């Protein structure tokens, strides 16, 4: 019945028109979410430069790399849509990894993992509490937390790398299903859940409401504080999960795990078209951002660009993403 859908309903049966409509739709979509074009360009570029780039082995590696900071970007997409941010995710990953590995000799396999996840959850709740109950901007709360939590990780683990002492832990980390890492599949599964939550559940719709017009959400009776605190808790939990998955995959942990990952994760979210000003964004496009950054990182390595340039790449990608954020901020729409 809405005015927008009428012309399509009326003309959509004609096949040429259907094709034209589809093309226009793709064009619109590509303009709104250029991340997929960038991803395609990167894939073409690197596959021309290096014959091994598109091998199944390498692609599954890219997916694994993507999964690690991808866990973080799932939580960050939720938070950024609600107009918050979490800069502690990298530090939380490091702390959780150290807890999960460092406690293995005394507590076995599962309890340390639970403690690591619990720490992530607790820090998320603390962040959320400080943002909502103390009324401090999430940027500042989590900026301070970023360094403080790293301090906690060092205080627990010292400066050395700790090796995992339980074989099952390493086996789980290296597990593959077919030729794809189980961790990568887990990431895709969580991403799908995130998509479902944002698009179809009450929690998800209220996330857009809080980011789009917080006062309206409060007035409508949405429990905004509780909602945001839960958002931070989810982000903390996913960050802890990222750290533990990384430790399992490498068979070791150190406090510096996850260093700079908040930058990768935020860049992925913003490249995917989620506005830092809140209220709009789609998790599917975050996946585009994650895959793009992982491909860049892997591809640069494949064509023998020194590792230092990775730091420059992430910095450059972030600035580029921000640039798009301001350029396209006048075209709001979400899923």
């Amino acid at each position: 019945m809405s005015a927008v859908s009428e012309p399509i309903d009326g003309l959509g049966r004609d096949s040429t028109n259907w094709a034209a409509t589809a093309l226009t739709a793709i064009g619109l979509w590509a303009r709104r979410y250029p991340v997929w074009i960038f991803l395609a360009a990167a894939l073409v570029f690197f596959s021309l430069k290096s014959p091994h780039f598109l091998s199944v082995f390498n692609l599954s590696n890219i997916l694994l790399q993507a999964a690690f900071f991808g866990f973080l970007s799932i939580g960050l997409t939720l938070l950024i849509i609600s107009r918050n941010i979490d800069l502690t995710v990298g530090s939380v990953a490091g702390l959780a990894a150290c807890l999960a590995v460092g406690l293995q000799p005394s507590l076995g396999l599962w309890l340390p993992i639970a403690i690591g996840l619990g720490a992530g959850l607790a820090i998320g709740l603390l962040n959320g509490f400080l943002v909502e109950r103390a009324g401090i901007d999430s940027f500042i709360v989590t900026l301070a937390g970023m360094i403080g939590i790293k301090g906690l990780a060092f205080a627990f683990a010292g400066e050395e790398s700790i090796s995992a002492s339980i074989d099952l832990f390493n086996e789980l980390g290296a597990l593959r299903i077919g030729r794809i890492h189980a961790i990568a599949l887990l990431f895709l599964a969580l991403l799908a859940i995130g998509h479902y939550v944002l698009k179809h559940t009450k929690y998800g719709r209220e996330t857009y409401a809080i980011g789009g017009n917080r006062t309206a959400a409060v007035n409508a009776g949405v429990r905004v504080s509780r909602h945001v605190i839960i958002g931070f808790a989810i982000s903390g939990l996913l960050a802890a999960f990222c750290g533990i998955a990384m430790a399992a995959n490498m068979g070791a942990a150190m406090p510096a795990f996850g260093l700079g990952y908040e930058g990768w994760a935020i860049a992925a979210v913003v490249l995917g078209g989620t506005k830092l000003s809140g209220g709009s964004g789609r998790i599917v496009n975050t996946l585009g951002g994650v895959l793009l950054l992982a491909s860049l990182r892997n591809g640069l390595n494949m064509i023998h660009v020194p590792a230092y340039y990775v730091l420059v790449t992430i910095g450059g990608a972030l600035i580029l993403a921000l640039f798009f954020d301001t350029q396209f901020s006048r075209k709001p729409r979400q899923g």
Partner: protein
Amino acid sequence: MTNSATQPTDDVILSASGISKSFPGVRALDDVSFTLRKGEVHALCGENGAGKSTLMKILAGVYQPDGGVIRYDGRDVALTDPLAAKQLGILLIHQELSLVPELSVAENIFLGSLPLKRFGRVDGARLRADTRQALDRLGCDFGPDDIVSTLSIARQQLVEIARAVAFQSSIVIFDEPTASLTQQEADHLFQTIRRLSESGVTTVYISHKMREIFEISDRITVLRDGKVSGGLTTRQSNEDEVTRLMIGRDLDHYFIRAERQEGAELLRVEGLTSGPVRDISFNVHRGEIVGLYGLVGSGRTEIAEAIFGIRPLESGTLSWEGEVRSIRSPRDAIALGIGLVPEDRKHQGLVLGLGGSDNLALPNLGRVSRLGVIASGLEGLLFEDYRKRLSISTAGPKQPVLTLSGGNQQKIVIAKWLAVAPKLLILDEPTRGVDVGAKAEIHGLIAKLAESGLAVIVISSEMPEIIGVSHRILTIADGRLTGEIAESEFSEDRLIAAVTGHVWADETPRPQAA
């Protein structure tokens, strides 16, 4: 004017007694009591700061009263949060619309209580059906899936009203609902309110527009200084009585129009086009007060912003003292001798955390400094000078303007521009949110400035104000100049005709009147 079906009955739906509320330093409500009857339209009036908004926010569960009892439908209730009030059936429609622009109409209406299926999934079919039903009852021409940001302000207001229908609210509170509406849209709103009344819904209508109050309401409660100063039956009262109760004395506010001593042409605008504003041409002379009259959203403010260099010109020219000049930024405008008292005092006119003297000095930093160093003596003198001239009351030059009354804040904004010694002063809604006393002072000041040779453009949506102060009125509708009215021909009817004639010209269909 009241509809026969909205005759007040004696069944009281809500009674509030002894309501008090204090904020640090302010007693916002003091022992306020009043009752609402089923199906009536109850107007609530009072000056700014009289406590209307506080009272309504208490009824809507936004604030908690310090004392007092609220009885709803025969029992004591505690309205602890907006959700509690909403569930009881009390809905507040805010002045700034309380919608999420990126969500659909349906999601906005049911926000906070979205219907669910299994796995926490929102029940889209039920959501749409329920919304459709509510929209149909109000005769809306848009659908549940339309994104709110694509709707006009009037339609967005209908979305809010649809909430009341959807939740079967028994009390709907409107806070100055017609501020951003055209006359037709306002008329349509009144029909909607009457329709709600017929179905037994009680309406609380907050406004300071007398004509509307007398057109729509059955009873009137007047607040003054946080206390009830009178309860009236609309048909047995009149505008003078309400005004007297509002300000506590007879309204004796007549406008002193500046004596017209028109000088040479100062500014000539030709074919100005910028954003929503198309092809505007007019001129202003020294010593002349030109009124720009139009509804909110008609493009009046955009004209001022284009002249002041805030928004770029797409085409057209500005001539200043006979020469074509390009004004690309407020700096250019100030250098020529133009000042702008903007529409939104708190966001555009003042730095709220700084003191009065700092704000006054902002466009005058060159004048109060030597070689880039602020001479605090000069700064203090400048402030003292204008404090006396405009009788601004503050505890001192450094008192943060945040803590001043609206009238004193506005005087500081005006003073800041007078201090740059402008040749042209543009005032956009100069008395919005200002109490009656300061309002008269500001009108007197405008007249005095014009008599001293300053050219003045006054933008206002208040007809008495624009008729009272101007020498000549230009009317704006839909971004175009629709008329020029000479002083001898000023009348409210002419103004209304000039601004509504074009309103419907190029827009998409409006909500249909039922």
